[in-house]
């Protein structure tokens, strides 16, 4: 019976000690002083690149709000039926819209154009595409700028923060296209990749 009382008393004393220690919160310490850093918050920039169509002026971010890559349908000059040996032109402007605090230059690169037939068409093999960079979208319809470009080649442009770069495309229908494919259509896809430098 006595030991039971003793244990109860010991328990109460222990609780009292713990409560006392918690209440005074570290009063075992000697002098001490704390200072804050006020370091603030470090925020990452947005990697935002937009594409502007030469002809229609339509604009889209390369990355959509759902995180997927955007597709921009380019309109071309000389809309209508192309005759064998003729060319049509299109262009896209790459805009670096980052909010980065420091330098943020990106490199935009076109990969080889992919020409694909629409269902029931065999036109693709008679289409050639050239890609070049230009100083402005207005230059895209000037045949001279495609003189040195390779068919199905790639183009590359560096774009500084808040800057813009331009890709121009020349789509040519082969002069040897047989009359049997007249009226057919094909799709041309030119992937654009942008990397931070």
């Amino acid at each position, binding site marked *: 019976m006595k030991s039971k009382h003793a244990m109860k008393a010991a328990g109460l004393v222990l609780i009292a000690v713990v409560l006392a220690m918690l209440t005074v919160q570290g009063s075992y310490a000697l002098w001490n002083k704390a200072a804050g*850093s006020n370091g603030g918050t470090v925020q*990452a920039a947005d990697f935002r690149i937009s594409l502007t169509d030469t002809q229609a002026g339509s604009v889209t971010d390369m990355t959509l709000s759902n995180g997927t890559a955007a597709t921009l349908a380019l309109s071309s000059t000389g809309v209508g039926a192309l005759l064998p040996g003729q060319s049509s032109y299109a262009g896209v402007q790459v805009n670096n819209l980052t909010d980065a605090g420091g330098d943020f230059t990106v490199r935009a690169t076109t990969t080889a154009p992919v020409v694909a037939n629409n269902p029931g068409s065999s036109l693709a093999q008679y289409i050639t595409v050239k890609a070049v960079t230009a100083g402005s979208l207005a230059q895209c319809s000037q045949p001279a700028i495609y003189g040195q470009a390779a068919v199905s080649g790639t183009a590359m442009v560096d774009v500084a923060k808040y800057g813009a770069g331009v890709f121009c495309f020349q789509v040519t229908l082969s002069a040897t296209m047989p009359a049997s494919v007249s009226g057919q259509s094909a799709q041309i896809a030119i992937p654009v990749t942008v990397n931070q430098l």
Partner: protein
Amino acid sequence: MNKMTKGAIATGVGIVLMVGGGGTLATWNQAQNGSMGKVVAGDLNLVPASAGVWTNASGAVIAIANYKVVPGDTLTYTQPLNVTLGGDLMVARLAVTGASAADGFGSNATVSATTLTKADNKVVAATTDLRPADSGIVTASTTFTFNKSTTDRNAVAASVDLSGIGYSLVQQAPVDSNNK
């Protein structure tokens, strides 16, 4: 004048003479001051010497509230601290508290352990004993690195709050300290 009156007068004169003698009722005695002086407490204090400053990799001072980092960026936060230590047996240790992880950046960024450096460029470790002679400016430095290896659009618009980082200066008990 009767005898009673004469006796009272004589007694009064005698007492007045004794008062005039200035305590001559006591035996010889002497007083002396202790010359113990004052007991003066030392000091321990830690305050920012000036506002902390963020710089980017090129050394330019930036306003962190408006600055957005990109992969490859390295930011350094420098905070001068004024350490005051006084007392003959004063020993204290300066440490960093509340170190932050890279938070929203995940593995794409690293926040370095904060380093503390005295004016003579000696590093103050958490176990370094500081004494009154070490009073003065200690510079705290923390580096945020946004890894160049970050791919795709990882960590775009991420953030990490570093305001939780602090510094503490704690006295160490003298060797022969009491238990009070």
